[in-house]
């Protein structure tokens, strides 16, 4: 029998846990901590309702959050990148300015990333995926359940006819 040293676990014998496991555990811990001691926790809410100092602090944090999200949501004009590129290009040498890439940069517009571009297809794709999932479940689950019910019902009827009318009659009705 092998004894474990203090702080040693059976897990450490088998190798280190994967980083994804650690991440999952960390996330769960943070979630549970937030539920217990975060700003949404009931006892915190109760305290804040009666404490002007905490109300003020929370209002300040909310103000910062609001200002940051307003700044992030304010769009700039579409041609800003183009103008900025043109301005920066003026500082480069003739060779670089005349390159094909430079001409392209002078016409550049901000383009959404691949995930954002695919965003508009998200709803139709989700709907199609849901339909396929429903079809698959119907086919695999409900139909097989129907088959089971049918087979069991037939067996019960056969058993009934066997006991009531005899085995031969039952065999005639339900086949071999």
């Amino acid at each position: 029998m092998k004894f474990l040293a203090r702080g040693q676990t059976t897990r450490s014998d088998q190798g280190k846990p994967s980083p994804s496991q650690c991440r999952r555990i960390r996330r769960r811990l943070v979630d549970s901590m937030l539920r217990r001691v975060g700003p949404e926790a009931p006892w915190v809410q109760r305290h804040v309702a009666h404490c002007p100092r905490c109300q003020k602090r929370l209002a300040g944090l909310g103000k910062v959050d609001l200002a940051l999200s307003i700044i992030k949501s304010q769009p700039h004009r579409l041609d800003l990148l183009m103008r900025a590129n043109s301005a920066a290009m003026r500082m480069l040498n003739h060779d670089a300015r005349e390159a094909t890439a430079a001409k392209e940069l002078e016409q550049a517009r901000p383009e959404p990333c691949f995930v954002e571009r695919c965003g508009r297809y998200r709803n139709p794709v989700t709907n199609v995926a849901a339909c396929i999932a429903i079809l698959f479940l119907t086919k695999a689950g409900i139909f097989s359940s129907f088959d089971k019910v049918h087979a069991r019902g037939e067996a019960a009827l056969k058993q009934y006819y066997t006991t009531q009318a005899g085995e031969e009659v039952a065999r005639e009705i339900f086949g071999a």
Partner: protein
Amino acid sequence: MFNKAVSYDLLWDSAAFEAVDESQRWILAVMRRHGHELVTMLWRILGNEQDVCDAYQTTFLRLAHHEEGLKPKWVKAYLFRAASNTALSMLRQRIAERKALSSVVQTADDTQDVQIDINVKHLTENLRYHVAQLPEHLRNVIMLRDFGELSYAEVARIMGISVGTARVYRCKAVQLLATWMNREADQ
């Protein structure tokens, strides 16, 4: 004699400039790769299109002249640090100009008892003003993380700190900003 010195200086400057100019094509690739992110960050810091163009131009000028035209080891880090520093100095200059202007305007407005509404512009400008006042390490995290939308890992790498420290710095920065904004609201 003096004229000669000036002309030698000019010759030297132009020679140095030509040496720097040798291969600037990599800058175009950098511009294409990080231009959009950089413009977005500058726009969020400055909130003025002309200032954004100026800061962007200065950033790339610095990049082109970095160690006599040598490409920095990590271009993205250099670019974002240079851009945020440029934007910061512009922001501070703007704040100083506004302060000077408001002191003139205030003398005229004192008698009128004008009520200032807290509107969106006031809130955002207020935040920009306070961000400019933050200590350097906290300010850099806010600029790179919130305005530049870089991940904590990237912010940590750029600043040469750990990811945890970057998170702590951001938290401290937000707390400090909240305190300052509250204090201003009280006054």
